[in-house]
């Protein structure tokens, strides 16, 4: 039946091309829309992952309750009844058993690297200007292994701050606002003692405003000294060998720790709900395009079947079965789907390449200034499957109808 199906399609070249064009447009649009959306999502996810470890362990900010002091004052035994309960908030949050965490992380094969940090709120001052900022005290070599901070620093790297020595690298916007320059000093104070002077060795620009305006990297020891909390840490940033494991690992840790443990995807849930919305829009758009194409195929095949009634009668009289006749029309639907799908994928790929050259500036300061487009093979397989699936389904109904036509009715009505 392929022979006759192709002959019939070739006899109506314009109609055939028109229907194939419809499927082609739908498929190409699916590929392009998916490529751009998934490309953007992938790009954003990489940013999120690379900027801040895969798992974030942080101290819980704790309010003091009537039992909070029992351990410290009475060795855990309840010996007194408070007239007025102790209340208020802990002076600062800290991770209670860092060495326990270090041991755990050192021995977990899923962990690639981790970086203990202390986060300290400070006032940065230069001359008469003072701006509040967060000092992140890190071991720079460890921090470098957990995040890609170095790609945001020009002519230098994070480890330029050393293990100690009051050197800092700060966000570019913050530096500009302070009116500071590289190799100049600024003072940092926490309100708990004397302000300390730090030398600016470099600056970074991530493209994320909040970070560029408010973050200062310092050596862990320097930051602890500034905060007057030697050897305390508030956060641990963990990088895993396999990102997709993040949620599992984080859940496992959370089970036996009172600290706050979250995976990168839990911390960025709002982003994922935007992604889900985008995916829904993508599917609705692609499905409506394909629905139009499928409806086109359905209509055209219905018309063809009606036009070909006489031929159906003669084919049946030659001994072809109803199934043979169904196949004659189903094959035509498949041709629409396969050609429309294959050319649609090719044209969609071309459109993606073109979109990939579109300049959007460099919002995240990563050196990538054009639209990021995903070329995931899954998009292309989906597009093909959708195009062919839609045509088969759309061709099925008219084809079945043609197979059920009674040959004698046809022959009698014309003879």
């Amino acid at each position: 039946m392929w022979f006759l199906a192709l002959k019939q399609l070739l006899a109506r070249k314009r109609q055939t091309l028109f229907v194939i064009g419809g499927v082609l447009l739908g498929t190409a649009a699916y590929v392009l829309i998916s490529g751009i959306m998934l490309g953007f999502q992938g790009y954003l996810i990489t940013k999120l992952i690379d900027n801040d470890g895969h798992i974030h362990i942080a101290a819980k900010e704790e309010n003091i309750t009537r039992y909070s002091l029992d351990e410290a004052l009475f060795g855990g035994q309840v010996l007194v009844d408070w007239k007025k309960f102790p209340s208020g908030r802990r002076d600062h949050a800290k991770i209670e058993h860092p060495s326990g965490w270090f041991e755990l992380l050192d021995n977990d094969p899923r962990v690639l690297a981790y970086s203990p940090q202390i986060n300290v709120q400070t006032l940065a001052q230069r001359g008469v200007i003072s701006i509040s900022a967060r000092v992140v005290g890190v071991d720079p070599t460890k921090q470098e292994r957990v995040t890609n901070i170095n790609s945001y620093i020009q002519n230098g790297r994070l480890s330029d701050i050393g293990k100690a020595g009051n050197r800092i690298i700060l966000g570019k916007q913050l530096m500009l606002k302070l009116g500071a320059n590289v190799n100049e000093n600024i003072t940092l104070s926490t309100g708990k003692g004397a302000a300390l002077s730090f030398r600016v060795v470099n600056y970074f620009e991530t493209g994320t405003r909040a970070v560029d305006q408010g973050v200062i990297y310092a050596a862990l020891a320097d930051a602890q000294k500034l905060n007057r909390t030697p050897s305390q840490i508030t956060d641990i940033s963990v990088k895993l060998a396999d990102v997709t494991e993040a949620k599992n690992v984080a859940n496992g840790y959370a089970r036996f720790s009172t600290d706050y443990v979250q995976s990168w995807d839990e911390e960025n849930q709002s982003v994922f709900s935007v992604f889900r919305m985008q995916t829904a829009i993508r599917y609705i758009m692609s499905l409506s395009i394909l629905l139009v194409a499928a409806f086109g195929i359905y209509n055209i095949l219905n018309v063809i079947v009606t036009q070909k009634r006489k031929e159906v009668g003669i084919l049946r009289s030659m001994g072809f079965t109803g199934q043979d006749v169904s196949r004659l029309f189903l094959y035509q639907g498949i041709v629409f789907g396969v050609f429309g799908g294959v050319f649609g994928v090719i044209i969609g790929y071309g459109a993606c390449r073109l979109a990939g050259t579109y300049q959007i500036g460099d919002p995240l300061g990563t050196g990538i200034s054009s639209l990021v487009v995903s070329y995931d093979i899954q998009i292309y397989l989906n597009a093909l499957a959708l195009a062919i699936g839609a045509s088969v389904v759309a061709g099925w109904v008219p084809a079945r109808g043609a197979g059920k036509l009674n040959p004698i009715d046809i022959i009698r009505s014309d003879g």
Partner: protein
Amino acid sequence: MGIDARNIHKFFGTPGQEVLKGIDLHIDEGEFVSINGRSGSGKSTLLYILSSLDPASAGELELDGKNIHAMSDEQLHRFRNEKMGFVFQFHYLLPELTAIENVLMPTRKTKSENARRTRAIDLMNEFGLSDKLKRLPGELSGGEQQRVAIARALIMEPSYIFADEPTGNLDSINGDLVMQIFRRISREQKTTVIMVTHDPDYAALADRSVHIADGRIVV
């Protein structure tokens, strides 16, 4: 052997209009039979029942000694493909295919188109169409189209040819040509030909004429 029809009845619609009222007909292998009668007398209806294309409302039909009710759908289609050829008044060619492709169409059912190609060309030559093999039906005259249709009916070397007014749409020259062909295949290939016709001259060319009136065979 041949065709054996016993007490065939055919009703149409509800309330049933009885078009065939008990037909008993035996056609021998190699016989050339013409069916004639008034318009609306049931000639076409009988022809299509004899060919198994249309089921009878009541009665028995044996083809080649086999009751058609005992044959599976698959067997019936195969029988139709290999043992029967149809020629209609309006020569139903497939308009997208050339003359030779039309002739070879039935062979595609059994994928024997290459084996039968020489026979197709021979038939076309025999019917005076040797220079028109690659023509589309739309580029052929009515008489030429009908000869292509007959060649198609003969391509599988069938035992039975069913023809419903094959000359009805042709002028006398082309009609004569068609009748010559039927006469020849009946005589030379011992093909059974059952032909409905209005024309008394053509009916007379058959070995036997069956006349139908009021749903019955009258002698």
